[in-house]
């Protein structure tokens, strides 16, 4: 298969960038999008040009590194997949494909398609954790978790922190990321002792990083490679109301994990 790529090239942070056209020829339909990029980069290297910088790591949809806006869609057109799980057979032969970095103020471009997503790490550092006693590991089933709560928590915990939600959001909001982390911990017994201070701290930090607010366009859940529901945002808002408007404090007994 042959493609025409238009890729964002930017030498470094703060320097001006532009869309540059490349030909991708002789690409296997079974190649993943990243493998196609590898082929293009090899050709660029052989020609003595600078290869296109892009983030990637596991290439099996679990690390969340491969951040690319493909034809105006985060992780490309397919549902529930990261860029590494997108295959070239999903495109028409001869298609022109636009590839851009995530465009969010909180994700500054490092180089070409690489953006700095440490803003998400700082939201986690603000409260997306539990405080646990050290010591010997407890038995796995020592703390009872209701089935429904376990399912909700696991669905939310599927978040790989790729940033597609913020990239896809017309408001540049990382609400889905923040809400997924909050929901994940708020549904489990281990998350209870810090439940309300967590939601206050994480929402405050989400805003401080310069992300926008949620208006429920629903773009994030379509873009999310883990198909996390915007219901988590409703869950976050509910806990936020409890924590602020009702000044609720943690009372429920939690586990130590």
């Amino acid at each position: 298969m042959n493609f025409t790529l238009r890729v964002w090239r930017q030498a470094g942070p703060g320097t001006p960038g532009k869309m540059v056209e490349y030909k991708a020829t002789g690409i296997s339909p079974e190649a993943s999008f990243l493998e196609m990029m590898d082929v293009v980069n090899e050709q660029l290297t052989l020609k003595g040009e600078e290869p296109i910088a892009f983030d990637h790591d596991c290439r099996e949809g679990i690390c969340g590194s491969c951040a690319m806006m493909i034809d105006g869609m985060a992780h490309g057109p397919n549902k529930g997949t990261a860029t590494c799980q997108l295959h070239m057979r999903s495109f028409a032969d001869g298609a022109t494909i636009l590839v851009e970095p995530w465009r969010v103020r909180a994700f500054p471009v490092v180089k070409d398609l690489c953006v700095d997503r440490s803003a998400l790490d700082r939201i986690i550092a603000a409260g997306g954790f539990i405080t646990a006693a050290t010591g010997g590991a407890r038995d796995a089933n020592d703390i009872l978790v209701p089935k429904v709560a376990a399912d909700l928590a696991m669905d939310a915990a599927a978040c790989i922190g790729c940033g597609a939600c913020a990239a896809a959001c017309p408001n540049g909001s990382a609400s889905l990321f923040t809400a997924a982390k909050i929901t994940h911990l708020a549904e489990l017994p281990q998350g209870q002792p810090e439940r309300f201070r967590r939601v206050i701290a994480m929402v405050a930090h989400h805003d401080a990083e310069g992300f926008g607010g949620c208006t429920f366009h629903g773009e994030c859940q379509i873009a999310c490679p883990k198909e996390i529901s915007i219901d988590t945002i409703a869950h976050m808002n509910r806990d936020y109301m409890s924590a602020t408007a009702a000044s609720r404090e943690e009372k429920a007994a939690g586990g130590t994990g």
Partner: protein
Amino acid sequence: MRAPTFFASTVGKKIVMAVSGLIMVGFVILHMAGNLQVFEGAARLNTYSAFLHGPAGEALWLLRAILIIALIAHVVSAYQLTVIDRAARPVPYVKRELQAATVASRTMRIGGVVLLIFIVLHILHFTTRTLQPAPLAEGDVYDNVIASFRIWWVTLLYVIAMIALAYHLYHGLWSSVRSLGVERGRLNPFRRPVAITLAFIIWAGFTIVPVAVYFHLVS
């Protein structure tokens, strides 16, 4: 109440928008029910108007005060969130293909501005009678309605405003209950039976009055 934290955050501002929005939706439904009395004749509508301005006068002012506060809270929060949201993406995409956003969700801001202008014009028209496209008399609501909506551009203006209202409510009703923490587990962004039904009823209930008057179905 942790007020400074609450009002400063994007989540807090959305909750303010949701609560104030739902208050205004409640009013809009009452207003629509009041309007529909035009089909029961001049006496019925004018008696209702006299009741509102007479025995229920104090309640009316209380309602107006609540609505003004709700409107200000709604507009101020919307403005602040718009500034925050615009700043969150300083460099736009060369190409952006929206996959889930609806016409309604994308026109919330411009539709909100249209509705704000409409609200001002509407109050200047029927409430204060500052704007008189046709001569309006105090107390004779029925004749005022008939005289005004016989003018094509007045009817057109109201019809356009009600389309803006329907779109605003379709997204706003659905979105506000989610902002308030209600989860319904629906992945399909277009399937919102309650929101679309209510938005349609409100649209139809308001639009039918000027249209019926214009086409002489009410006289």
